[in-house]
């Protein structure tokens, strides 16, 4: 039987079955007039007069119509309500599940593909499931009833008409298998073409500057040709199987008709019965062959369902229960190792971040300094070793606890389509307007906020599109100020902001650091000369540690970085 994924909703809904019952009754009542018609026809042909009065005939037909109408309405309402409810619940359960994944998985690509499953693909899935439950499943009743009528009219002819049906039904899984294989290939090729196209569209301006668009288009065109070929294959391969279904069904009719004609000639079959059976067999074939139209839909639903089930299978971050006293937090990492996508990024890292200290993480790009910062706030879980707060493994604490202790300021600032005040209040929802303004002032954001059309009540565009990089960063600092967490994880870089912006951000960060344990991912070494300790990472290991004065004399990696950077500062075009 078709898998529609109702088990994923987390609850059963009896309306599914009552709804189906009513819809099937409706379908059966729709089939009755056909039975009446052949009954009347037979009587007319045999005795020359109808078996009942015209009034009675009209009343019976009308009653069937009205009855079918009522059953269908009731069934439809039950089915619709139940399926929309179940599918909605499935979507929510999936979202609940996904939000418990380690946060580190949410990179750009992953975000795009998952959101597309949760939105567009889910809408399509919803439409297919809600419609196929009510319509397809109920409509199966129609050919079944007609088939029964057929067997009762004349079992030999009925059997002939039904003979190819099992074969025809076998064609369905056959066609599915063919489609799946070919469609998977075509889908992969098409995805490759879409990736190329999207990249072309995104990068068109650079490509034009380089005058490289032509070369890139040649690649796109080659891929588009492959797609065309594979799509055609995916369409053609299963076509015989799909046509076989409907062809076999009509072959059944022809068998029935031919045998009937033969027996008629032999005098073994009444004329009237012959025509009655032929008529029923014809409608049987028609209604059955219409079901094939839904097959493509069902297949599509099955594919989406596979993707949904795969998402449900991803392991979530476990949560502990231990509470943590409010107050200062001693943060430590012990023998920490972590690999991402099969690449080891950290190995055997030990470090302590005493209360109120300033620690700088430095090293070339790819050394693992950002990954270490991410692990401290439990964006990921470590593969080996532990991160502890006041001696407790963070995995034994609730996520909420861990996250309430750490504030972050990163380059990549996420803003929401709400007012400026709401965006700042994210740090502390119960904050008053005065608190918000005070935080904004301290973060050197108040002045530019007041220049916005509605000040603090200005609703930001998608991801704060109209704000400059420096302004966004100052909003995120205001947010962190309100949150007032004891630990601050900071990305020091302030790329592409003008000198004014930079000095404002520096003042704001200075205020934010006040009284907190600070871990900074540092790029410009001269800014961290005052750090309590500097951890120098290379290839995922801590290769040096200590204060600036000691490291700069040590003759190791830090000294090299420092001297290079000092020379770079003197560079002139």
């Amino acid at each position: 039987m078709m898998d529609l994924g109702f088990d994923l909703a987390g609850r059963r809904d009896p309306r599914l079955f009552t709804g189906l019952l009513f819809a099937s009754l409706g379908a059966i009542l729709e089939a009755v007039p056909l039975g009446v018609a052949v009954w009347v026809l037979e009587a007319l042909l045999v005795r020359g007069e109808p078996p009942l009065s015209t009034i009675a005939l009209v009343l019976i037909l009308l009653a069937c119509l009205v009855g079918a109408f009522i059953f269908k309405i009731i069934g439809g309402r039950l089915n619709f309500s139940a399926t929309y409810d179940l599918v909605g619940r499935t979507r929510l359960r999936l979202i609940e599940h996904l939000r418990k994944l380690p946060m580190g998985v949410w990179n750009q690509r992953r975000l795009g593909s998952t959101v597309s499953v949760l939105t567009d693909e889910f809408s399509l899935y919803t439409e297919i499931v809600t419609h196929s439950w009510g319509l397809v499943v109920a409509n199966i009743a129609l050919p079944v009833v007609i088939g029964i009528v057929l067997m009762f009219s004349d079992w030999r002819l009925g059997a002939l008409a039904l003979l190819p049906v099992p074969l025809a039904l076998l064609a369905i899984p056959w066609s599915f298998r063919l489609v799946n294989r070919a469609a998977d290939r075509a889908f992969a090729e098409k995805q490759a073409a879409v990736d190329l196209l999207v990249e072309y569209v995104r990068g068109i301006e650079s490509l034009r500057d380089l005058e490289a668009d032509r070369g890139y288009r040649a690649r796109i065109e080659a891929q588009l040709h492959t797609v065309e070929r594979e799509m055609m294959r995916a369409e053609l391969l299963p076509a015989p199987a799909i046509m076989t279904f409907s062809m076999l069904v009509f072959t059944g009719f022809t068998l029935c008709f031919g045998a009937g004609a033969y027996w008629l000639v032999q005098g073994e079959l009444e004329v009237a019965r012959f025509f009655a059976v032929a008529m029923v067999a014809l409608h049987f074939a028609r209604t059955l062959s219409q079901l094939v139209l839904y097959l493509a839909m069902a297949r599509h639903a099955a594919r989406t369902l596979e993707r949904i089930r795969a998402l449900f299978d991803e392991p979530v971050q476990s949560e502990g229960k231990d509470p943590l006293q409010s107050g200062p937090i001693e943060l430590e990492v012990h023998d920490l190792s972590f690999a991402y996508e099969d690449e080891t990024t950290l190995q055997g890292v030990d470090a302590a971040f005493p209360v109120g200290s300033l620690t700088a993480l430095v090293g070339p790009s790819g050394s693992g300094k950002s990954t270490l910062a991410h692990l401290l706030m439990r964006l990921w879980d470590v593969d080996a070793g532990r991160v502890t707060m006041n001696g407790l493994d963070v995995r034994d604490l609730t996520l909420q606890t861990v996250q309430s202790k750490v504030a972050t300021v990163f380059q990549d600032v996420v803003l929401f389509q709400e007012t400026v005040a709401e965006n700042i209040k994210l740090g502390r929802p119960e904050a008053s307007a005065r608190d918000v303004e005070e935080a904004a002032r301290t973060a050197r954001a108040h002045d530019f906020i007041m220049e916005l059309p509605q000040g603090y009540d200005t609703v930001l565009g998608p991801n704060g599109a109209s704000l400059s990089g420096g302004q966004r960063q100052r909003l995120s600092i205001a947010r962190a100020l309100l949150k007032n967490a004891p630990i601050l994880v900071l990305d020091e870089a302030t790329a592409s902001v003008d000198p004014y912006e930079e000095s404002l951000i520096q003042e704001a960060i200075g205020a934010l650091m006040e009284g907190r344990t600070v871990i900074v991912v540092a790029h410009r070494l001269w800014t961290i000369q005052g750090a309590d300790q500097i951890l120098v990472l290379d290839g995922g290991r801590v290769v040096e540690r200590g204060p600036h004065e000691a490291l700069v004399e040590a003759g190791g990696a830090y000294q090299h970085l420092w001297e290079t950077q000092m020379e770079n500062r003197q560079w002139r075009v």
Partner: protein
Amino acid sequence: MGAFAELLRAHRLRLVASAVLAVAAAALELAPALGIYAAALVVFAPTPELDRLPWIALAILGLVLLRYVFFGTSMILSHASAFALQRELRTELARKLAVLPAGFFDQRSPGDLKKAVVDDVDALEATFAHHVPELASGAVTPLLALGFLLFVDWRLALVSLSLVPVSFAAFAFTMRNFDELMAGWHAAERRANEVVQELFRGIVVLKAFGREASQMKQVRESVFGIRDFADTLNRRMAPAYTLFMMLLGSNLLVVLPTGVILHGGGSIDSPTLILFLALGYGITAPLLKLMTLFGDFQMNMVRIQRVSAILDQPPRSRESSTASGAGSLGIIVEDLSFAYDEERGPVLRGVDLEIQPGQKVALVGPSGSGKSTLAQLLAGARRPTQGLVALLDAGRRRDPLGSVSLVGQRAELFFGTLRDNLLMARPEATEDELRAALDAAGLSAVVEHLPLGWDTPIGERGAHLSGGEAQRVTMARAFLRDCPVQVLDEVTSHLDPDNERLLQQSVSRLCQGKTVILVAHRLRSVMGVDQLVVLDEGRVVDRGPHGLLLDRCPLYRRMWEVQQSAEGWRLGTRRRELRVSP
């Protein structure tokens, strides 16, 4: 004629053939019912020739099989056209995007363009592969059947149609609030999509601030909002719609009683009655398919319009010129103004500049002063709203496009190998030239570490290159192009010291012997250039060498001072002695 229509014209024959075959297949769909009628004519003839019956059975079988041959061929033709058309449309769209004016891209986000190139073109498969043949056959089957019935007995034929007006009245009733309901439906779906997207886009921040729960509340409301709207939709539309569907398939209700009466009165014979029951029952049902198809078809017309709108855009003007390579060129800018759109007002106003061949010029100024926009105009990537930007080539003025290379803030890598990424800049480059460019960009050491050397795939799918390495790949491209004028927009942002040094070295190399325009935030790095152009709010405030500006330009002096103090900044001071870690 539009570009879309022109593409379509090439497929005219195949599409027409597909429609004709679909119509023929649809006509053959009537074969079984007509076979029953033929049998009735034989059986009820005054002198029945019953030996004809087996032939009728054979004929039905043959025609049924033939129907699948026609149908299959029609589908092959329509799909072949549809897939080819999709390919051609995408190729054309890609070609078009390459020649549109830069202003076009300011009006549309990459998301909008992606929608046209990917989603809209995708949806057109249904139009050409399915809608065209199915519309043709959906209309033809009932029409042919009706024609035949009218020919056999016009009274009964009209009776069998009598429910159609009632059914359409029910349909009209269903549709009375359709637009409004559909708008509500789409709004509910869009709302849920937005809220879900917002949740995951911001999930790290929401978690960090413990605010996931409130966003989840919105998600829950919006998802149940869809369900509740579906209920409303069902309540308001289902009764009339169900009636409409049922009436279309229920003409037995009128055909059977009327047939019985007429047959009893002797005005129709038995074969006619049999024909009407076999063919007339459900004759109007295909109309249903026709209507839903027509709805889809119309929806896709909107998509076609969207795609056509791009295809029919006028391309940017482009005067003939290519990089002459040798010798450096000067640049002249006269009374230049530029606006991204009229609403937001001009970003640059009345800019005059003259850059001598071989000069090094830096554009400086606060954020939003128009530096990057001016750089793009100088490179010919954008066209002035007013005024002129031209290269001076031995006294002659010419278009900058093609002779100026622009290296921007974003280091864009594309799918493909490192070699592909380099060859983009000059497809005919030899192995030696590629190697020289890699050397000049300080990339040789990086290449050695890549598993497949130059043939290692890079970019999002391939080997990871750091920001600095990616930036140097774009530099290597600039070396390969070897344009006489070089525009560099903020190429040295925060990199680790080794990467920064390599990048600085390659910038110095690239600038040798060329006319160079730099956009710079770090004043110190450009203090030695021939000419600094200070911009503020889209105007040139002053220009000259560093020393002169420091003396006479207050804005420049302030920028310089602020930067000096920012460079002395330290993150906190040592606040406590560290315990010895365990």
